[in-house]
């Protein structure tokens, strides 16, 4: 066993231990398991949010995207910042409503606001379809990290099985508390490792940040800014806006709002979380540093930039620490996703068939569903295949389709009907699927429009379809009911 493996094994054991300790003799009823009894103060909510938002995508994807695609990667820095800003206004009313009505999941919110359990089931289906590929991404990342950081001594297969078992065990045991406590270790380690690498690599290989960017600019002119065509400023602005809207629509992120003790905790986090975005600056530096040091990674392999450069640069013990941080970045969000998917299945779909079921019963079903969800994700991770990649690309766009129905139920005048909300979500999701499966862009749809419009993120189109269908069905429905009432009135008199 080499030094690197010791570090990785220690990370898995630490996660397991923290995850189990988080329970501390509590009875894990539905309220404790899913939302920690709505008891978290600002620090734990911060850790939980940071723990699930900054995933293997931050670690591998942020650096890989900078390595492979350059300047457009800055969008990642921006969209989260704007999302946190919106959260200040949008989330406190959601939190308050959830507390007053005893809600546990994102789907509960839609079901309660629109008085429709069926809408709740639809929302949870959309959520689960988006969450499973997200979980697969975490497991895939885990496999890649363990394989690279362990110098190939542990293959992807065993790594994924062990990781899934660890997350399943502590989620079943401690629910959201397990995720929050393992996030303590994860955030400390990931932050330290990414900031260190982001400073060390430019210094070590180029003598400084300025020299590094100068070298990259000399080798690839214009690479570190937005290109004139394609991923241009139009693409940038539309993508930042779209992803900012979808940010809190992820069911596990939405659900973690409920754990807050009060609305003030949420506002405090809206102030602090933008600063956490700066971790991406260091992830980008790692990617830019790798361009000239480990050239030639193409396609999906760009995500290996960080690990390849680390293995080339450091002794095994340091690679072990990096690997350990990587393992935690996969486990913490993975555990949140497991818990959320199981809760949605039990609380919003299973309950639909068993309306009389007590919370006690629901939480037992949810816990039993955790290993089931984990197995499905492990299967897709190991089976590989392009379908799951396609699903993942769609996942973010899928959950973004929940945004219009959410905003419209927060306003005072409530003109959106349950049927309208459901039709809008279905139409939006269908549009996303059609766009992705046919590789449509705004340019292929409207070749006659100016280039600027063609470079807009095509996701805006799906959102527009969603809003139009929602409006037509809602207004149409209301007019039809009004006419029915008008006809009935004389008869009833």
């Amino acid at each position, binding site marked *: 066993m080499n030094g690197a493996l010791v570090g990785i094994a220690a990370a898995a054991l630490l996660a397991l231990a923290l995850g189990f300790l988080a329970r501390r003799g509590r009875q894990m009823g539905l309220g404790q398991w899913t939302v920690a009894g709505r008891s978290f103060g600002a620090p734990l909510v911060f850790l939980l949010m940071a723990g699930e938002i900054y995933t293997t995508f931050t670690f591998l994807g942020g650096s890989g995207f900078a390595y492979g695609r350059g300047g457009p990667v800055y969008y990642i820095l921006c969209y989260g910042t704007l999302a946190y800003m919106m959260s200040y206004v949008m989330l406190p009313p959601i939190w308050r409503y959830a507390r007053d009505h005893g809600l546990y999941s994102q789907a509960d919110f839609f079901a309660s606001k629109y008085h429709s359990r069926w809408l709740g089931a639809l929302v949870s289906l959309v959520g689960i379809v988006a969450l499973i590929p997200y979980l697969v991404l975490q497991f895939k990342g885990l496999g890649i990290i363990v394989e690279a950081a362990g110098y190939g001594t542990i293959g992807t297969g065993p790594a994924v099985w062990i990781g899934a078992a660890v997350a399943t065990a502590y989620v079943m045991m401690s629910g959201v508390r397990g995720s929050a406590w393992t996030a303590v270790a994860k955030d400390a380690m990931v932050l330290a490792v990414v900031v260190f690498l982001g400073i060390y690599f430019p210094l070590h290989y180029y003598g400084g940040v300025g020299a590094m960017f100068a070298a990259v600019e000399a080798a690839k002119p214009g690479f570190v*800014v937005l290109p004139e065509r394609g991923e241009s400023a139009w693409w940038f602005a539309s993508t930042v806006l779209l992803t900012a809207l979808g940010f809190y629509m992820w069911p596990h992120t939405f659900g973690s709002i409920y754990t807050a003790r009060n609305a003030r905790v949420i506002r405090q986090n809206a102030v602090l979380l933008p600063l956490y975005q700066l971790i991406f600056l260091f992830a980008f530096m790692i990617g830019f540093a790798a361009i000239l040091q480990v050239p030639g990674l193409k396609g999906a392999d760009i995500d290996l930039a960080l690990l390849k450069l680390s293995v080339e640069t450091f002794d095994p013990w340091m690679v072990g620490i990096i690997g350990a941080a990587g393992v935690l970045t996969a486990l913490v969000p993975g555990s949140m996703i497991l818990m959320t998917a199981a809760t949605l299945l039990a609380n919003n779909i299973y309950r639909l068939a068993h309306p009389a079921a007590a919370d006690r019963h629901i939480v037992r079903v949810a816990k039993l569903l955790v290993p089931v969800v984990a197995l499905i994700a492990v299967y897709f991770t190991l089976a590989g295949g392009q379908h799951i990649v396609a699903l993942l690309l769609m996942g973010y766009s899928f959950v973004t389709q929940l945004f219009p129905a959410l905003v419209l139920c927060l306003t005072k005048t409530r003109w959106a009907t349950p049927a309208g909300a459901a039709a809008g979500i279905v139409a939006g999701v269908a549009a996303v699927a059609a766009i992705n499966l046919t590789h449509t862009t705004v340019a292929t749809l409207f070749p006659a429009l100016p280039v600027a419009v063609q470079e807009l993120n095509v996701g805006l189109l799906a959102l527009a379809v969603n809003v139009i269908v929602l409006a037509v069905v809602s207004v149409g429905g209301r007019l039809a009911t009004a006419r029915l009432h008008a006809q009935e009135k004389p008869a009833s008199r």
Partner: protein
Amino acid sequence: MRTIRLLALLPFAALLIGPFFLNRVEPTILGLPFLLAWCVAWVVLTSAIMAIIFRFDPTNRDDLS
């Protein structure tokens, strides 16, 4: 003073509209290409603006429930 919340529009303008005019490498700031430095600066400024809004938001005084 809920109007102080209008400050929140600044980061939106800076990050969504800014790149149209500031998509350039030079001048570099602390070694960063200008566009990246602009984004980083606004991440920090966003946090500062949120802190100001938080400080003056009357809902934070009576909303401890």
